[in-house]
Each structure stands twice: as C-alpha cells, then as structure tokens.
C-alpha cells in the first residue's frame, strides 16, 4: 500500500526524528555541512536511520535537508548536489528495505527570493529541481519539503518536484512562530494561508515541523485540521534548544512527549514524527502512543 492509501484508510504513520542532532553527537562539527557526511561517513548516516527504524518509524528521511545547490554552495559543495542527494536516497532505501517509506528531505535554500533577496523564481525552481532529480533517481518514495518559512519558496519547490516527477507524493511542511495574533511564519503567512497555497500547488500532505516544542505543535495541528482536508504531518522538535557549557540541550524528554503525542493522535494527525533534538527514544514514545490508539 502506498503512503496516501494508508493515510486514506486512517492509519497513523510514525516518522523519524532529528538527523542533524544525531550526527552532531557522532562527530559532525559546527561549520560542516551535515550532508557532506553522506560522502565522508555514510555508515554513520546509515546507523542513525537504522536506529530510527528500530525505534518504530514507518517513514525515514534522507540526510539531505540542506541538499539543494544554493544551500550546498555555502559549503562549496554545489557541484556535489547530484551525488549527495543520490547517495542520501540510496542509503535510506537500503535501510528501509521493503518495510519503511523513504522520504527525501528538502529544506529551505537559505536565500530570499526577489524582491526581498536576489534569487529569481526561475533560479529557485532550478535549485530544487536539481535536488529532487537526484533524490528521485536515488529511489525516494515521497518528498518532504520541510521547515519552510516562505510559502512562496515552498510552492516553487512543489512545482519543481512536479516537473521532475508528476506523480511524486509531496509532503509540504512549514515552520510557524506563535505571535499575539496567532501562528505565523517569519514571513507573515498564517496556517490557513499556508495550507491553502500548498494544497493549491499540489501538496498531497501538509503540516508543520520544527518550531517551539510539542505543546505549540498540538495547537498548530488543531489549526491545520480545521482548514484542510488533506492528511496532516506534524514533526515537533524537543523544545527550544538551550546552549550550556556542555553544548546541546533540548528541554523536552521522551516522557514529556507522551501526553502531547496522544493529543496529536486524538486530533487525527496522519503522520507524527520528530524534528531537532528528538532521539530514537522520542520516536519510540510516538510509536507506542500510535499503537495504543489502534487498540
């Protein structure tokens, strides 16, 4: 059964957690491109995906969040776009075997489109096309366009993906901040506007990832459910990270996730996963809560 068929049947799927956070614990250093690890340390990336699979994830994301050429150019790696995305897809494909769904991760370009920045719409479309082409060739099942803050950039990415493969299943996920006027992206788009624009452009599944902890994600999920009939994806981070002398620290433990994941299940969210700071232990909790709902 395909992802969309499973969603239609009312199955709740579990997605994986944070790839970047896990890689930072396994040797990735600040200032390095997390995607470069695909070429230098493929085994490490494979290991992280395997851990998420074992924790109960139905959907595994590729380590290609910053894999569009505009983003890779920040590390002088734009010319490796094809290789990085192809290898990224291959590795997860191997881990997934016949059981898990392979989702190509596609994050923001890091650039503003005209008139706020220098990138034209055509350049942005080409940027995402180059990434998606390699991901598709590497064997992804679906594409996750995620952590988008500019709904225009997200829609251009959707268009680019459709040009590469018209029947590719597309998940489009944005990041919202809570303001006194409700949830908005930093560019000023609210949830209703975002859902409408993404759906209109051809997203099959819409939702939100990253943000500011799972409690706010429950509110975001509720808002999405009230404005769209598409399946909704929610991938929360483990709270706002805090710098300490030891480095990383995310405040929300797997235990803290429990009741809020139950709330997401209750709201009818179709795909629940993690973002920054979530570990296999968080994903295990999501798996348990989702399974409990089946009983």
């Amino acid at each position, binding site marked *: 059964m395909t992802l969309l068929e499973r969603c239609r049947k009312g199955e709740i799927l579990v997605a994986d957690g944070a790839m970047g956070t896990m890689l*930072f614990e396994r040797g990735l*250093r*600040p200032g390095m491109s997390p995607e470069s690890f695909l070429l230098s340390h493929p085994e490490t990336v494979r290991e992280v995906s395997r851990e998420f699979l074992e924790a109960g994830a139905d959907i595994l994301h590729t380590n290609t969040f910053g894999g569009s050429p505009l983003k890779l150019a920040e590390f002088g790696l734009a010319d490796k776009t094809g290789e990085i995305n192809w290898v990224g897809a291959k590795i997860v494909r191997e881990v997934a075997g016949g059981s898990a769904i392979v989702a190509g991760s596609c994050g923001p370009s890091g650039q503003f489109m005209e*008139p706020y920045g220098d990138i034209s719409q055509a350049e942005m479309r080409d940027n995402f096309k180059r990434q998606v082409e390699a991901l598709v060739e590497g064997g992804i099942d679906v594409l996750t366009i995620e952590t988008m803050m500019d709904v225009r950039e997200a829609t251009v990415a959707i268009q680019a993906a459709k040009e590469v493969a018209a029947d590719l299943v597309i998940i489009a996920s944005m990041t919202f901040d809570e303001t006194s006027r409700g949830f908005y*992206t930093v560019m000023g788009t609210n949830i209703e506007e975002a859902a409408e624009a993404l759906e209109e452009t051809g997203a099959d599944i819409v939702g939100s990832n990253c943000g500011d902890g799972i409690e706010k994600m429950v509110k975001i999920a509720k808002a999405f459910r009230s404005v769209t009939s598409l399946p909704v994806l929610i991938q929360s981070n483990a709270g706002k990270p*805090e710098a300490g002398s030891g480095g990383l620290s995310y405040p929300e433990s797997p235990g803290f996730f429990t009741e809020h994941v139950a709330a997401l299940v209750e709201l009818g969210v179709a795909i629940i996963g993690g973002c920054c700071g979530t570990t296999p232990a968080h994903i295990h909790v999501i798996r348990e809560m989702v399974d409990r709902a089946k009983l």
Partner: protein
Amino acid sequence: MEVLAKISEALQRGDEKTVSTLTKQALDSQVPPREILDNGLVAGMDVVGRQFAEHAIFLPEVLMAARAMYAGLDLVKPLMEGEDIPSAGKIVLGTVQGDLHDIGKNLVGIMLRGAGMEVVDLGKDVPAERFVETAASEDADLIGMSALLTTTAPVMQEVIDLLRERNLQGKIRTIIGGAPVTDRFAEKIGADAYAFDAARAVEVVKQMVSGDQ
C-alpha cells in the same frame, strides 16, 4: 518638517525610490543631513522595529524598509563624514564561528543602523579572534554575537575570554543572542548582555551605549 515625515512614511512603506527622491530634495533645500537621519530615516525605522516586535508586520516588510533606509543612508552618510557629532555608538556584529545562519544577525544589523548606530558587520562564521581584533581596531563600543546552533554558541565564550586576556573587558562590551542563547547562558559565560530578539537588541544596545556617558 514635512519632508522628514514623508521620508519616514515612505521608508515604512518600503518605498526605496521615494525615500531616495525625498532625501535628495531635503538635502537640496539645505536640511542638515543629521536631521534627515534622525527625524526621517531613524524615525521611520523606529516605527518599523516596533511594528515588527508587535507582529503587525513581518520579515518582508522589514527587509523592504531596510532597503529604503539604506537608499537614504547612502546619500546622507557621506555628507556627515568629519562632522564632529558623537555617534550613537559603534558595534561589531557577526555570527559565531561554525554558524552559517544569519537572518537574525542581519535583522539586528538593520535595526541598529536604523537606530543611528555604526555597524561593522563581519558576516557569518566569524572566528573569535576576528571579533576582538576588529572591535579593537575600529574602536567599537560593543561586540554583538549571534548563534543559531546549540553547538556553536560556546564559541561566544572564546570571544569573552579573549577580551579578558587583552584587558579589553569593560571597554568593549558584549551582547549575545540567537535561538539557543538564554540570559542564563549569557550570565554563565560572562557576556554583558543578552537580547531575546532584534527589537530587544536595539533597546539593550541603546541603554548600554547611553550608559557610557
């Protein structure tokens, strides 16, 4: 003065062309550059900053307003060189080494320029040494550092240690910000100040500089 109010309004709309035209007009009719800066450009950015803090406007409006502000600044600044007026303060700004995220830092830069400060922007991925050397050679009042990643935030400590080593602590003060940074962290590493967001950064920096006497 009516033209200054118009400059401020055009800036708030992000109307680069009108800000440029009106600034030229004002200069032609002998309005002192300092007044154009303070009561036109800075006044306009002040409104933009407040609206952004209140979520009445978002990043696109701020970026367009900033563009309009720079159009005015480019005309006014050269005429102010050599003017013996105390600057509103000078800050060296950058994202710490290893961190390539700079939207937040850029916003702070825009807002501080909009508050009439001199900003030396070192960009992203800035090593500790460069912060300190630039601040010393530029005779800056402050170093402003930003980090988005939890893994890069500790680099801020190096800058503060370097300032201490070179007896510059107190003379060049530090303000830090970014997603993983908290006031607790600022206190722990000995930073002089912390700001939650760009709007707050401007408030804090203004206080720090005016407290200098």
